[in-house]
């Protein structure tokens, strides 16, 4: 029996390797590299500054572990492009391991605004593990108390890594909006269609929107950002309009 069990284990391993090893394949349009993009990104800095301005909100986007930060065709980038059409703002995109760099960039942009006698309003947007990073950064900025509080936090299917280096992600469930003065508006979009890898309704969030039933069978963790992009764009426009309103009041005074 022991030998049979051993053989079954070997069979299982062979099957697993076969199914995993099958991933790189030829497509109609040529060889498609099924390289896990994370390894490519980690060779260098995962940061793209899209736009820099002396006024308007400071928008930091964390598009998640699998999204190229210099890509142009994913949901959060499209939402950001639309927001930038609404008015002046500073915008940058960061990988999930670049929270410290994002922190420095937000401080620098905040100092530019203060030198320009403008309000320094921060907006954080995160998807997947990036959502968890955005929540943590919101808490850090609120704790510092240097006037860089987050006016808008948008999380899409926010996840956090388990401690002790375990890679398995779990849903992020506590909104930093519960901290006094931490964040004015927290919009949380999540889906429950993908087993194990999904966000959740956050206690304390201003808005929680479950979106997988709205698009049955089409939405998964992998593409939920594309589906909610128009809504995220509307949220970001709100922040840009709000900042423009605050600045105009300040100027008139």
């Amino acid at each position: 029996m022991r030998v049979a069990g051993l053989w079954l284990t070997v069979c299982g391993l062979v099957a697993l390797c076969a199914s995993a090893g099958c991933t790189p394949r030829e497509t109609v349009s040529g060889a498609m590299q099924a390289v896990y993009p994370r390894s490519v990104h980690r060779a260098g800095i995962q940061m793209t500054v899209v736009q820099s301005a002396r006024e308007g909100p400071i928008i930091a986007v964390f598009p998640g572990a699998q999204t190229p930060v210099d890509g142009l065709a994913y949901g959060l980038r499209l939402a950001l492009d639309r927001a930038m059409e609404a008015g002046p703002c500073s915008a940058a995109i960061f990988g999930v391991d670049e929270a410290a760099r994002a922190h420095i960039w937000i401080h620098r942009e905040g100092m530019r605004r203060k030198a320009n006698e403008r309000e320094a309003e921060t907006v954080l947007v995160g998807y997947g593990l990036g959502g968890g990073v955005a929540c943590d950064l919101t808490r850090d900025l609120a704790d510092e108390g240097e006037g860089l509080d987050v006016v808008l936090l948008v999380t899409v299917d926010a996840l956090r890594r388990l401690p002790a280096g375990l890679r398995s992600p779990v849903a992020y469930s506590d909104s930093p909006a519960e901290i006094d003065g931490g964040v004015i508006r927290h919009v949380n979009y999540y889906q429950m269609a993908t087993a194990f890898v999904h966000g959740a309704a956050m206690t304390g969030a201003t808005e929680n929107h479950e979106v997988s039933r709205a698009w049955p069978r089409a939405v998964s963790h992998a593409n939920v950002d594309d589906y909610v992009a128009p809504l995220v764009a509307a949220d970001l426009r709100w922040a840009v309009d709000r900042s423009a309103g605050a600045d105009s009041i300040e100027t008139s005074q």
Partner: protein
Amino acid sequence: MSECRLDSCAWLTFAVLVAILCGLCGCERRTLYPYVDTPYIKQQQEHSEAALRRDLHSMYEDDRSIALRVMAHRARAAGADGHEQEQRRLVRLILSHYEREQSPQIRSRIVGVCLPQADWRDEEVYAFLRKCILEGDQRTDACHALAALAGRAARSWLVPLLEHPEAQVRYQAGLALTQLEDPQASQAVVELVEGMAPPRWPLVVGGAPLVQCRGSLAERIRAVRAPESAEDTE
């Protein structure tokens, strides 16, 4: 000795067959969860349009999805560069693919993701989206896409959906209306929120508790209305 003797030939054949079977299954889906197309779009952007057109006929859904999204991205880039004819041509190509596409996932992606991404705003696209709403074909996608593309003009098509028999459609139409930055649309959503109670509304809407849906929509419309009221004051 155990009763189950190891016949190496039989076991090896079994192992190979299982491996082949799993390998074939693995070919269908590239990763643990389906349609991880985002990382591949950047690579496919380098390809010619002929290659993308060939991908539209691929048997794999994610090939078709990637090709469509790359086309939508190219359409948007063409529009940004002032090449409107090119943008229009690519959008028409995407719409023509919708007619022959069989997969509901890809059809959903065309309406909900590719059309807003392509950002081509003309009566042909609006008519297509209105048709989707009327026929209930990818209705939720069409609601959000119409709101994103047509702006305030979408109000007359979305407001009637607030009376739809399905609670999920009413809720999504309300959510789409919040994108419009239009006082009349906002008022319609406020009235929707005020009426969100049983028995007309079920206790669970689209997998989320009714209380959560009502609270979220109310907060959203409150945030959206603040700049509007400032505009009115001016």
